[in-house]
């Protein structure tokens, strides 16, 4: 199932913390321009998988291939330089920097910054109004928006997104779904989306996988008529 043309190809990946193994032999691909949702109950290893892909946790077995290059043993900053944007779940913005500075850090190239900033502020107008505000003084939901905005600034080839919809008001979640889909159309970004919000996940994703006890338990396409109920079954057990 390892497609050489895939943006992200994970095969047989195993990792964990200390003596505990959290994910076991996971294989998953995300093709160029594809959005894949990763669902599952708490503690099943979703965030751990993203952390291992980004190199924050060492892989015990298996490998991670991005655009055909094996990055399994690479340091996080080297992986990030392959145009990978990761939005972690906790404590991910620079609290003491301004909103503008946080966004600036999202785009390495100075010549693209103004253009990207204008585009992002179009999507999230409040960010444009508050470029000088210290990011730590934004509300919880606003920080989440800043986080995804910073990731989008980078024009990434691959986005690893961890529960971005948490704590956002419904209308913003709607907008976020539209933004992700539009971004995929525009730049062909591949997205691996960890979510609790099944409705949002199915709305944007092409395919879905359910993680259970560190292994992929079920997967399918989002267009399956019974996708939502099948996932709900997995989450309720």
């Amino acid at each position: 199932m390892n497609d050489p043309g895939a943006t992200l190809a994970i095969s047989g990946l195993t990792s964990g913390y200390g003596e505990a193994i959290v994910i076991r032999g996971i294989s998953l691909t995300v093709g160029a321009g594809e959005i894949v949702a990763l669902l599952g109950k708490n503690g099943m290893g979703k965030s751990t998988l993203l952390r291992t892909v980004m190199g924050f946790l060492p892989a015990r077995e298996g490998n991670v291939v991005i655009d055909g290059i094996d990055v399994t043993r690479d340091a996080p900053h080297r992986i990030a330089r392959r145009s990978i944007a990761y939005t972690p779940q906790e404590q991910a913005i620079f609290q003491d920097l301004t909103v503008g500075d946080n966004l600036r850090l999202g785009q390495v190239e100075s010549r693209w910054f103004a253009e990207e900033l204008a585009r992002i502020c179009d999507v999230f107008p409040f960010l444009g109004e508050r470029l000088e505000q210290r990011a730590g003084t934004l509300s919880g939901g606003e920080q989440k928006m800043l986080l995804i905005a910073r990731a989008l600034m980078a024009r990434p080839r691959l986005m690893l997104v961890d529960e971005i919809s948490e704590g956002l008001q419904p209308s913003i979640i709607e907008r976020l779904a539209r933004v992700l889909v539009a971004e995929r159309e525009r730049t062909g970004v591949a997205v691996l989306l960890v979510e609790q919000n099944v409705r949002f996940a199915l709305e944007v994703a092409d395919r879905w996988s359910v993680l259970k006890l560190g292994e992929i338990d079920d997967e399918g396409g989002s267009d399956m008529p019974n996708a939502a109920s099948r996932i709900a079954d997995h989450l309720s057990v």
Partner: protein
Amino acid sequence: MPRRRSDIRTVLKFGIVALAVLAVAPFFLDIYVVNILIRALLLAALALTVDLLWGYTGILTFGQSAFFGIGAYACALVFTHWGFGAQWALLALFLGIVAACAVAALAGWLAFYHGASPLYGSIVTLALPIIVTQVIFAGGRTTGSSSGLSGFPTYYWSSETWFWIAGVFLVVITGLAWLFVRSDMGRVLVAIRENETRCAYLGIPVSRIKILLLVIAGTIGAIAGFGYAAFTNVVAPELGGFLLGTELLIWVALGGRGTLIGPVIGAILIDVTSSYLSGSLPFYWKLLIGVLFVAVIVALPQGLLPEVTRLWRRLIGRRTRMADAPTLEPITAQEVGRGTGQPLVVRGVHRHFGSLQVLQGIDFEANRGELLSLVGPNGAGKTTLIRCLADGYERSGGTITIFGRNLGKWGPDRCVALGIGRKFQAANIFATLSVAECLRVARYRLDPPSIWASGTTLRLPEAALRIVEETGLAQSLNTEARHLAHGQKQALELAMVLALEPSIVLLDEPTAGLTRVERERIGAILTSLTERERLSILLVEHDLDFVREISSRVIVLHQGQIVLDGSVEEVVGSELVRNIYAGASLDAGSGPT
């Protein structure tokens, strides 16, 4: 409270071995080494206090040498100027301890008052030895100024006797400290190091504990200094100086901070080695120690002892032994602060950050048995409002009354005593403590922790216990909280808040990151708390379906003002909410799944 037997047995076992080694050591060692060791043993006790403060509680202190100097000078001054004899010795020790306690209390008050940042503590303790040294310099002939005092009468006991005195002192202090840090109160110290804010919101008087700890550490330091002066018959300003204070940090870091034994061994080894090297390599030994320090910090950031024990465990093939998880014992909650009258009355509360008005003219009240949901767009001021209710320092103006009592300018730990429990938006727990330990720390106010033992049962009110059991935390009581999944951290914090037995519960997105099923379970627990136990719950939540299911009333906050306050149907179905908040998704009929 039942004690953990194995700890006391370990301390006795190692204590007896250590005492036996000390008893015979002088007969095998060179007299020069014995003399050096006496000093090293006393300094090791001082290093141990640094580990208590820095390693366990997270107070980076440069000032422990000041207390050593105070104890030493108390001895030298009394013996020089007043007289010598048993009663004078006791008086000198007493005065040394009193002076050290007073200085520690004052320094602690300056360093840890409400709103002081951790930097204050370090700066105050940095200034402390400098001030003590200056006072000694200014003392003229009384203190001997820069040349110190020497030749005062003292007990000219043999080196062996002094060695045994210093040794027994160190073993006793280490044994007691070992029991203390492994007790439930010791876990509270680590909790303070890990997350002071959460401690305050659990009603733990953080500043008072830190000041008390500094006073105890100062007392131990003064006794060690007293012993040093009585033994050497010489005191100099350097004993209370900043250099020694910094060296102590190096010894603790090298030995392994937060291990107690590591700093003790580190202090002894380095002090003895230094004494030797300063004889044979007078100019290079400090450089050598410096290089060693840098090398250890780079290669082994934890210090030497943790590496040694790890190696040892690997050699004998034993895994880290886990303490047994405590048995959970359900109790009936006696709500804290419950009085007569309305639980919560808010009048004219406003909050601004500089020119930015975040909340204005907030008026509402919460009734008993009510589950009041607070909804509004991101950035409407919901979290700010919760913050104002849980910390009297937060609001810029207006009054908040809890069961008829004015909240005034009370810090979060005292708000807990009024019956308020707050859960933060991002899970706020103690990363390196286990789940059981986190819950026990939350019981600080109601079940005061033992300072020398660790309880085998953990009393939890029914609601907290249900959360622990229904979210699977009961199976991970021994897991360190940082290894929990995000949603489990949320559940743990909620259980910790309910363990406070609050009358008013403030919940900032308690179910974020949880699955639908887990949400429903938590929703059921919350509604039963309001219905059966008549608690008031204030809930910030984005999932309008969830809000609809469990709330009895809804308040809508928009741009810092209350724009709607009414029943669930009135609010959720309103045009206003549709426009400012829900967008199209409400038409589709459901919120997040």
